[in-house]
């Protein structure tokens, strides 16, 4: 936390302990939200004041309450709200949920101490996001383009390869344009030992660590550290985006663990539960995390957020994905069926949507044919899906040759376009070229979404001719 205040108030009068909450005698001058230290023979844990009246202060402890004895344990009040040290030197480091190093390196020498809750961006100064981020993953870059300043979540399920996708994005993501600086902040919330080890290994071996900050709170971390982690990561991200004019992409996984922690604390506080026991304010709480994404007219940098969550039972109407979807600008939905077919990344392109994509693609942004290729791929794949269902009923024999071309297209779309190596990076141009390649197996008059000019310029047949003549 911050430097110890000159005089610290303390008390031993603890009225009760429930879950991670301590009910303590309020002594004069306690601030709402301030940090406390609970001393247990030799060790100490931190906590925060979450309700205070003249008689009682409710303290939420950032750790286990085991060993706390009313009358013996001392609770010290620091008079400061929760703050982390922020510095550009965080780049390349691996930290915990309260920004303490866990990579064996030295302490962060702060340029500033920042409240992890941050402030709301002034809506009047925001500008609509309109520049793309290249993730190097075809299905995302072509059909679900991520735009700087956007918040676009990945809705996954347990057992699906979202962690691998996350690491691939950390490795590969970049922005176009010379002089544009790009940073990835990675936050892992409540991940298992295996996952944490995977992330640490990947991060150390990828060579992109110098433009990455990683925050990891394992499943064994205290509930409150898990709750603090997304905000800590975003505070560091904001510091770098707004003070150093950098484009920051923050990836947060797994937000389901965050929501579980939120529910746990809410239950301990005996709050009136909302749907499925999650607190009624979960929408607002998640919004204060996700809404930190954006661009403003007076700064060069940008804040982009990609939260990853696992849908319990793959249910998209579960409160966690539901409330997230209400806040974010679209969603990338992973599909178990496609994953079973052995396709990576297994994205359900029909349920997925990037709401801000239309402003971020096209000439000078990705490529001029992007919009048309996008519409054509989607409509052709939709037609093919319909034909697949039909052929399951009437049999393959009764399909026309045109229909069979579509089935062939769908196979190529999945195996060649969507399917991609975990370590394979494709540029926007490469992705669109593969798109053209698979579209070119369809008869030309089926390409209704593509204008004749674009067709002449990009269709492999004509392109080959032009290049051949040269």
């Amino acid at each position, binding site marked *: 936390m911050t430097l110890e205040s000159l005089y610290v108030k303390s008390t031993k009068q603890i009225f009760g302990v429930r879950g991670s909450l301590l009910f303590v005698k309020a002594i004069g001058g306690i601030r709402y939200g301030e940090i406390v230290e609970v001393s247990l023979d030799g060790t100490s844990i931190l906590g925060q004041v979450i309700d205070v*009246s003249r008689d009682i202060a409710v303290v939420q402890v950032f750790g286990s309450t085991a060993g706390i004895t009313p009358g013996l344990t001392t609770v010290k009040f620091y008079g400061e*709200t929760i703050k982390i040290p922020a510095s550009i030197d965080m780049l390349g480091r691996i930290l915990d949920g309260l920004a303490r190093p866990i990579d064996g390196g030295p302490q962060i020498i702060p340029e500033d101490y920042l409240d992890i809750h941050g402030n709301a*961006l002034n809506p009047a100064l925001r500008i609509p996001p309109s520049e793309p981020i290249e993730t190097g993953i075809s299905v995302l870059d072509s059909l679900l383009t991520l735009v700087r300043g956007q918040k676009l979540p990945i809705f996954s399920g347990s057992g699906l390869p979202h962690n691998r996708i996350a690491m691939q994005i950390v490795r590969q993501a970049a922005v176009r344009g010379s002089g544009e600086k790009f940073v990835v902040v990675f936050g892992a919330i409540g991940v298992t030992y295996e996952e944490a080890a995977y992330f640490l290994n990947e991060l150390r071996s990828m060579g992109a660590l110098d433009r990455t900050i990683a925050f990891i709170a394992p499943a064994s971390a205290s509930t409150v550290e898990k709750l603090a982690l997304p905000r800590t990561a975003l505070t560091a991200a904001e510091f770098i985006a707004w003070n150093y004019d950098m484009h920051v992409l923050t990836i947060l996984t797994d937000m389901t663990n965050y929501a579980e922690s939120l529910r746990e604390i809410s239950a301990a506080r005996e709050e009136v539960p909302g749907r499925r026991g999650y607190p009624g304010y979960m929408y607002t709480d998640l919004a204060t995390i996700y809404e930190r994404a954006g661009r403003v007219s007076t700064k060069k940098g940008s804040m982009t957020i990609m939260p990853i969550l696992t849908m319990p039972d793959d249910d998209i109407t579960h409160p966690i994905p539901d409330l997230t979807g209400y806040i974010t600008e679209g969603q990338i939905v992973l599909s178990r069926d496609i994953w079973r077919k052995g396709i990576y990344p297994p994205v359900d392109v029909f349920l997925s949507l990037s709401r801000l994509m239309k402003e971020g693609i096209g000439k000078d942004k990705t490529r001029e044919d992007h919009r048309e290729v996008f519409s054509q791929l989607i409509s052709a794949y939709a037609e093919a899906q319909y034909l697949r269902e039909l052929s399951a009923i009437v049999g393959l024999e009764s399909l026309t040759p045109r229909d069979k071309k579509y089935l062939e297209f769908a196979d190529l779309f999945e195996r060649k376009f969507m399917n991609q190596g975990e370590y394979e990076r494709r540029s926007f141009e490469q992705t669109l070229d593969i798109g053209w390649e698979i579209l070119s197996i369809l008869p030309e008059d089926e390409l209704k979404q593509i204008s004749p000019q674009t067709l002449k310029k990009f269709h492999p047949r004509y392109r080959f001719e032009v290049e051949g003549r040269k």
Partner: protein
Amino acid sequence: MSSRVGRIYRISGPLVVAEGLAGVMMYEVVRVGEEGLIGEVIAIRGDRTFIQVYEETSGLTVGEKVVPTGKPLSAELGPGLIGSIYDGLQRPEKEIGVKTGSIFIERGVSVPPLRREVKWSFEKNREIKLGDKIAPGDIVGFVKETPLVLHKIMVPPEVGGYVKWIADDGDYTIEDSVAIVSLGDREYEVKMYQPWPIRRPRPHSEKLGPIEPLITGIRVIDYMFPIAKGGKAAIPGGFGTGKTVALQEITKWSHADIAIYVGCGERGNEMSDALTSFMKLLDPRRGRLMMERSVFIANTSNMPVAARETSVFLGVTIGEYFRDMGYDVVMVADSTSRWAEAMREISGRMEEMPGEEGFPAYLSSRLAEFYERAGRVKVLGRPERSGSLTIFGAVSPPGGDFSEPVVRSTVRYVQCFYALDYGLATRRHFPAINWLMSYSLYIDFVKAYWNKLSRWSEYRETALKILQREAELSDIVRLVGPEALPEEDKLTLEISRMIREDFLQQSALNPVDSYSPPEKDVMIMEAVMEFYRLAGRALMKGVTVARVRELKSRTLIAQMKYYTLEQLKSGVFENIVNSIRSDFKELLGG
């Protein structure tokens, strides 16, 4: 105000409990803590006063002072409202940005809602003479606020007497007096602005019934489920159903003099998108920037929750103020669910007995207080005039489930219900307003308007019947396939597809299609109905639907929405109708 100063007793999130505030009134504004955070009294229990604080409360201490102001939470109404972007407490966000030099909204900032230094060109009302008797609502003068809005300076409610003095034409700030009214030995200075408590409806002389539709430029609303001027509508829909786009389109194109957009607990990027488009887009009827007739209230989801409620009431108060000038005002609130959630949070912290799903029992009456402020009224004052305030409220039900408390309470107070359907949205049918679930109770009031343009009542009913029949047939089709149906039903399916695709679907992204004036709605529907009439006749003569489906005029109808009204009027419509007729003639002849 008085010397009564209370002390903070308890702090729990946005709720602060104070002691020692004897004589404080409900909904009075108080200043909390050393920083003077703005709060409002929401309950008084004995010596304890419950205050909801509109700013972040971290760092407040028990024992800090709480100072009452003696005033209820009020809006400042006067020239300078148009084109502003306010937060829930009517602080102008642009000016906050300039003043603080920060990209964030920091707490404790205080900036007046209306700019004090701007001089407005005031023109006095020539009808008013010295010594005239003057009453609330009387117009004393005019300010051309923007090229689209003539701001009428009115005598505030509760002020009346004789004109002692009136300012000459000239440039004044809003603080300058423009008239003095005297009654007995009391004098009142009329300024160009007036405060009004946001929770209290502004008075009017008489409530009037709905008579004409508020045209929104959206075909499914205007033609199928019209809303009247002064009406109330709810637009519920899960995420991804195009709620925000629909609301933005309504704000942009509706035939209102003033538009108020309240973004309450929603996305910041969307707000910024709406703002940017309003600064660029032209009002199609008057060829001026949309911003020149709009007021924005932006309280995004990460801003203090308590201010969501004030955003909604602030919007409605500003709406009533312009209504009182005799204007037709449209206000949209996106989304009322976020406001309801804020109520739930505060209520939970006050340990009130929860109603359904944790929402407070007064949810429904609070929603009523809001929606009931819509209406068409004869306003106070001379010259005699009427104005209207139409409200569209978005509802965001969790999981898209319409049986939740906010939707259920809302439907009791609205007359129009536009249900956004996830199924339609995934099929890319936009606006995704479900025609089977939506309704309007204004049909009888607006039919005179529409029937003057065409055989609206008859066509509308036929169209709805066809759509209803399609829904009935869809189960059978799923079982046996469309080819097994009798020809008559096949035709119904074909026509209903035309109604859905060529009429109901409307693209917000296409510059021509995004706004559809009523005359155009009428032409498209007439073409579809003509096609239906002739196809029915052809069927009786033994022609199959398969052949009707291949007619060229079928595609001509599909393209109608991409023509402007002028193009349709100058021959295109006539040509299309003629080619429908000749197509069928050929079919029967050949």
